[in-house]
C-alpha cells in the first residue's frame, strides 16, 4: 500500500467520523430537549417533522442565517478565534478514540494522554471568549470556567491513572483489550465515581454548570456570541460530552467489547454503551440543582483529590502485592 492510498483511506475515515459526529452532536441537542421534556411531563419539540425530528436542522439553519454580531469594544481577532479554539480540540480528540475493533482513525502509544492534552485546550477558547467579549459577565464566566476546568482536569487525569495501571498502556485499543477479563468499573469503582463527577465538571454540565449559569451570568462566557459562533460553542459542548462518555466507556466499561454470549458486533456495543452514558448525563441535568462555586471547589480539592490519591495508592499496592 503506497502513501497515496493510505492517505486516501485516512482521509475517508476522517471525513466519515467528522460527518457522523457532527450529525450525532446535532441530534444530541434534540435528544436532550426531548428527554428533559419527558422527564418534566412535557412533549418537547413537536413541530418540525415527526415528533420534531428535524428540529436540529431547523435550529442549525436558523443559527447559520442569523446576523453575526461582533461587539464594537471587543478584541476582534481573539473574539473570532475563540469559538474555533473551543470546537477544534473537541473534534481532534476523535482521531484516537476507538469506535470498534477495527474502526478508528489512528492508534498512538500515548493515546489517552493525547486525549487529555488536547481536551485541556478547550479552556483556552473559553478564556479567550470571556476576555475578548469585553463584558463583565463573560469575563466572570470565563474565569469560573477556567478555574473549574483546570481543577477538575487534575482529578479527571488522576482518576484515569488507576485503570491505566491495570491496563499498562496508554493506547486506547490496548486498554480495551485489557478489559477482556472484566470491566475496570468493577475493579476501580472509586476511580469511576471520581471520573464521572470530574467529567460532569469538565463539560460544564449540571450540577457544575456555573460558567454558563443562565440565572446568574446570562449564560457566562458566550453571552456576547450569536449566530454561527454561538453554534460552535454549543456544538463543542455536546462534542465534549461524547468524548468524555467515550473515554469513560473505553476505560471503565470495556469500550466496544461486548458481554460474552451475546453476539453483537463491537460497534453496536459501543453505540449502546455510549447512548446509556449520554442518557445519564441528560438525566442528571433534569434532576440535580446547581452547586455553589465554593462548594464546587471544596468537593474537588477536599473530597475527590484525596479519594483519587487513595485509589492510586491502593491500586499500586494491590498490583505490587498480588499481580
Amino acid at each position, binding site marked *: 500500500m503506497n502513501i497515496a492510498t493510505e492517505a486516501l483511506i485516512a482521509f475517508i475515515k476522517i471525513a466519515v467520523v467528522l460527518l457522523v459526529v457532527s450529525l450525532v452532536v446535532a441530534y444530541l441537542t434534540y435528544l436532550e430537549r426531548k428527554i428533559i421534556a419527558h422527564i418534566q411531563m412535557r412533549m418537547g419539540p413537536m413541530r418540525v417533522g415527526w415528533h420534531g425530528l428535524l428540529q436540529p436542522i431547523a435550529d442549525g439553519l436558523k443559527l447559520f442565517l442569523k446576523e453575526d454580531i461582533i461587539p464594537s469594544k471587543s*478584541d476582534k*481577532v*481573539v473574539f473570532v*478565534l475563540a469559538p474555533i479554539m473551543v470546537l477544534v480540540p473537541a473534534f481532534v480528540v476523535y482521531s484516537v478514540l476507538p469506535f470498534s475493533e477495527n474502526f478508528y482513525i489512528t*492508534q*498512538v*502509544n*500515548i493515546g489517552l*494522554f*493525547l486525549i*487529555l*492534552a*488536547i481536551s*485541556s*485546550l478547550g*479552556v*483556552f477558547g473559553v*478564556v*479567550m471568549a*470571556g*476576555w475578548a467579549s469585553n463584558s463583565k459577565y463573560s*469575563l466572570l464566566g*470565563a*474565569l469560573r470556567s*477556567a*478555574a473549574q476546568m*483546570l481543577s477538575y*482536569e487534575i482529578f479527571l487525569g488522576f482518576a484515569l491513572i488507576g485503570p491505566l495501571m491495570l491496563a499498562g*498502556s*496508554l*493506547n486506547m485499543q*490496548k486498554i480495551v483489550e485489557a478489559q477482556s477479563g472484566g470491566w475496570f468499573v468493577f475493579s476501580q469503582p472509586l476511580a469511576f465515581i471520581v471520573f464521572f463527577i470530574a467529567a460532569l465538571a469538565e463539560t460544564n454540565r449540571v450540577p457544575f454548570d456555573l460558567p454558563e449559569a443562565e440565572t446568574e451570568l446570562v449564560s457566562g462566557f458566550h453571552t456576547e456570541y450569536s449566530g454561527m459562533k454561538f453554534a460552535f460553542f454549543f456544538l463543542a459542548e455536546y462534542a465534549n460530552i461524547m468524548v468524555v462518555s467515550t473515554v469513560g466507556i473505553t476505560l471503565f466499561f470495556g469500550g466496544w467489547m461486548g458481554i460474552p454470549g451475546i453476539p453483537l458486533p463491537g460497534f453496536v456495543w459501543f453505540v449502546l454503551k455510549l447512548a446509556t452514558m449520554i442518557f445519564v448525563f441528560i438525566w442528571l441535568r433534569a434532576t440535580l440543582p446547581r452547586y455553589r462555586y465554593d462548594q464546587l471547589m471544596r468537593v474537588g480539592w477536599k473530597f475527590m483529590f484525596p479519594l483519587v490519591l487513595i485509589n492510586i495508592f491502593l491500586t499500586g499496592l494491590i498490583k505490587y502485592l498480588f499481580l
Partner: protein
Amino acid sequence: MELPFFYLFSAGIVITSLFMITRSNVIHAALLLVLSFFFLAGLFVLAGAEFLAAVQVLIYSGGIMVLYLFSIMLMNVQVAVRIRQWHRQRFFAILIVLILGFEIWSVLGKGVFPAMKVWPWKLGATPGNVEALGSVLYTKFVFPFEVVSILLLAAMIGAIVLAKKRIDS
C-alpha cells in the same frame, strides 16, 4: 519526510516567538506563545518524544499558559498597552543578542557530531517511549524527581503566600 515538517514547525515557532516579544497587548503575546508551543509539540513528535509533546500541550499550554491568561485577566491590561513598551537599554541589548547569535553560530560551526543513534523502538509504535521514559524517570532519576516535587510544593506555597491578600494592612 521529516525535514519539511521540521522546517515548517521551526518557521512557525520562530515567527510566533518574534511576534510574541513585540506585541504590546499581553493577551496577544500569551496566545502567540501558546501557538508557538503547539509547533514545538509537533517538533517534539518529530524528534521521537511524543510523550513530551503531550506533556508540552497538557502542562505547558493547558496549565501554565492558562495560568498566565488567568493572571493577566486579573490585571489592568488596557493601561499597560498605552505606556512606553521598550526598555532604555534596548539598543545595547539587541546588539549583544546579535553578537551572541553570531558567536553561537560560529561555535556550532566548529562542532562535529558522530552519527545519530537509533531508538530501540519504532517511532509511534506501542509500547514506545512512554514505558521506557517511565522506567528511567522512576529509577535512575527518582531522586531529582522527588526534589522537583518538593520544589513544586515550595513554589505553590510561595505563590499562595505572595498573592494572598494581606489582611492586617
